[in-house]
């Protein structure tokens, strides 16, 4: 294909002379019936391009203006880093791990923070130990790993199910949509925590890891409902836009239109809701572990640590205080971050 009118660089001038505000008289505004275009009109100048700031850069700037969100972001990052590198550091410096029970722990006695077994000051256990003499800091950090893992993986599961389900329902519309969404409504009407308890009790696994996987699946499979609704709503408003028609007109297949063209356009609300799903899933996990249905010993999560701690609240309060405070801090931060992201990605909603 050859264009016999090559682009010429000298059109900067031409263009500026033709800007609407430079038009001296009205009759040029009408397209005359004897439609004639001079050759020069075919070219464009560089000035026609807009240098845009991307949506993400804008959102990032708005996020940084929100002090609570920045606080949430920093604390979240710190907690994640601590959960990842904390346990190996403790092991290297003091030799303690989350399941290390010292030999002399024959008497059931929990050591308070910053004390050694004989009651003198010591750096060995900054958070004290639990009833079996295990280092509480190591266990809280491990609990953080597990809690965050449950939060993130279950959210990913809910993302996978919720986004595909909502997108398909929204795009196909009509009767299929009604049917799919009524199913969601039915699931919504069930008390989800009971559903999870039933799921966990039915498929009870014998190994701690098996139980953990079951927890991911159970929590993920009940937390996708809102995600499906959000995505469906987004797709409904997007699918009548012209770019979808344009994609159809170029012969793009339906699955490709849904997942390559539409879903990326709904990414903002999805990110926001996913960020808010993580703390809510973590809270559910804590609740389940508190009831003894979640993480099984010797593994620990913030919920199971709190459950252990509450039994000795009167005598060894640090067993509840440390996991509880850390968990609260993490949940606050994640929620602040999620709220901040929502404001940053959807500036209209703030007004």
């Amino acid at each position, binding site marked *: *294909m050859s264009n016999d009118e090559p*682009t010429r660089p000298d059109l900067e001038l031409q263009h500026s002379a*033709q800007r609407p505000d430079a038009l001296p008289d009205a009759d040029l505004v009408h*397209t005359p019936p004897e439609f004639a*275009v001079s050759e020069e009109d*075919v070219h*464009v100048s560089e000035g026609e*391009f807009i240098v845009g700031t991307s949506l993400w850069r804008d959102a990032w700037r708005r996020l940084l203006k929100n002090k609570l969100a920045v606080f949430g972001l920093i604390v979240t990052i710190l907690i994640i880093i601590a959960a990842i590198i904390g346990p190996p550091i403790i092991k290297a410096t003091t030799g303690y791990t989350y399941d290390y029970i010292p030999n002399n722990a024959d008497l059931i006695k929990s050591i308070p923070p910053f004390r050694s077994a004989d009651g003198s000051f010591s750096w060995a256990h900054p958070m004290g130990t639990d009833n079996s003499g295990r280092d509480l800091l190591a266990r809280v950090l491990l609990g953080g790993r597990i809690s965050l893992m449950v939060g993130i993986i279950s959210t990913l599961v809910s993302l996978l199910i919720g986004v595909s389900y909502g997108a398909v329902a929204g795009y196909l519309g009509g009767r299929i949509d009604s049917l799919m969404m009524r199913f969601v409504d039915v699931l919504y009407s069930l008390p989800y925590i009971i559903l999870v308890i039933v799921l966990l009790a039915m498929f009870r696994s014998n190994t701690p890891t098996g139980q953990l996987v079951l927890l991911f699946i159970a929590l993920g499979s009940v937390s996708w409902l809102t995600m499906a609704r959000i995505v469906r709503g987004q797709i409904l408003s997007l699918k009548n*836009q*012209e770019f979808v028609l344009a994609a159809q007109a170029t012969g793009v297949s339906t699955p490709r239109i849904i997942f390559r063209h539409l879903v990326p356009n709904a990414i903002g609300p999805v990110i926001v809701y996913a960020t808010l799903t993580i703390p809510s899933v973590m809270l559910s996990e804590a609740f389940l572990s508190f009831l003894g249905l979640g993480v099984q010993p010797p593994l620990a999560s913030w919920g199971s640590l709190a459950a252990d701690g509450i039994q000795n609240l009167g005598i060894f309060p640090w067993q509840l205080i440390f996991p509880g405070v850390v968990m609260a801090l993490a949940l606050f931060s994640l929620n602040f971050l999620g709220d901040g992201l929502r404001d940053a990605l959807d500036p209209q909603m703030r007004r």
Partner: protein
Amino acid sequence: MNGRNGNLLEVRDLRTYFHSEDGTVKAVDGITFTLKRGETLGIVGESGSGKSVANLSIIRLIPAPPGEIVSGEIIFDGQDLLRIPEAAVRKIRGSRIAMIFQDPMTSLNPFMKISRQLMEVTQLHLGHSKAEAYEHAVKMLETVGIPDARARVDSYPHEFSGGMRQRVMIAMALSCQPELLIADEPTTALDVTIQAQILELIKTLKQTTGASVILITHDLGIVAGMTDHLIVMYAGKVFEQAPTTELFARPGNPYTKGLLRSVPDPTHEQGKLYQIPGLPPDLARLPAGCPFAARCDRVQEICRREFPPFVQLSSEHYSLCHFAKEVYDESAT
């Protein structure tokens, strides 16, 4: 019937209805035309006259339900598009029949790079590898006159102006060298200086590729210099159909005459612009007689009672009017 007789597209008695709660909307009600290879057909009409629906019907993109192509034949290069499976139509879309839409601000996906949107078409239809498709995308952008195409190809649509985006749309439409290009009001959303550039671009590319073009517009000024044949649509019906020069010189339908009078003439100082009185009728509740009767300046008793005949005025000139011959004769003088 095949491509050898020179007809790329034959549409016969196409009817597309929309079923709504208020009754059936006959958006397109019996249009027939042929388009030869290399020719340009203009479809003119007011908003809601069915011109866009007619063209979406050609590539079978009418949302169903509520839409339905009730009857007709759309013979594209020998095969009836209404009677082949969806998968086969999808192969034709974008590769042999391509479309350009009205609003370039919304017809590009805001979340995809220009390069990816251009590459998608050729990867799909021409089996290009990623590298080939990328090179092709750059080449296409150069073809449509985007300066510094290689640097621009990885931009997002919001970094382009309206005119530039329409060029990208044209590049995308022409990527697979389609035999038929349907341009649905390609310049409506652009300002006048850009309009001229885009039309000239379509014209040039049409000449170099030999594609046939269907140009949909409500602006008679645009079709005059661009098209070989014209169809004037009103209320889902073809009101007049003729070679462009003849239709401009000698319209045979009161509606066409009204449209031609409504075009502002820059060489004359007009006190007041002419307008056709009234509004187009509700397509779900069409009157018994001529749908234009209520607005027509030469309406007679018969117009309100009987649906007008489709009168042949010359070898290729048809008009839907009880008084087509009279109007045609008056126009000659």
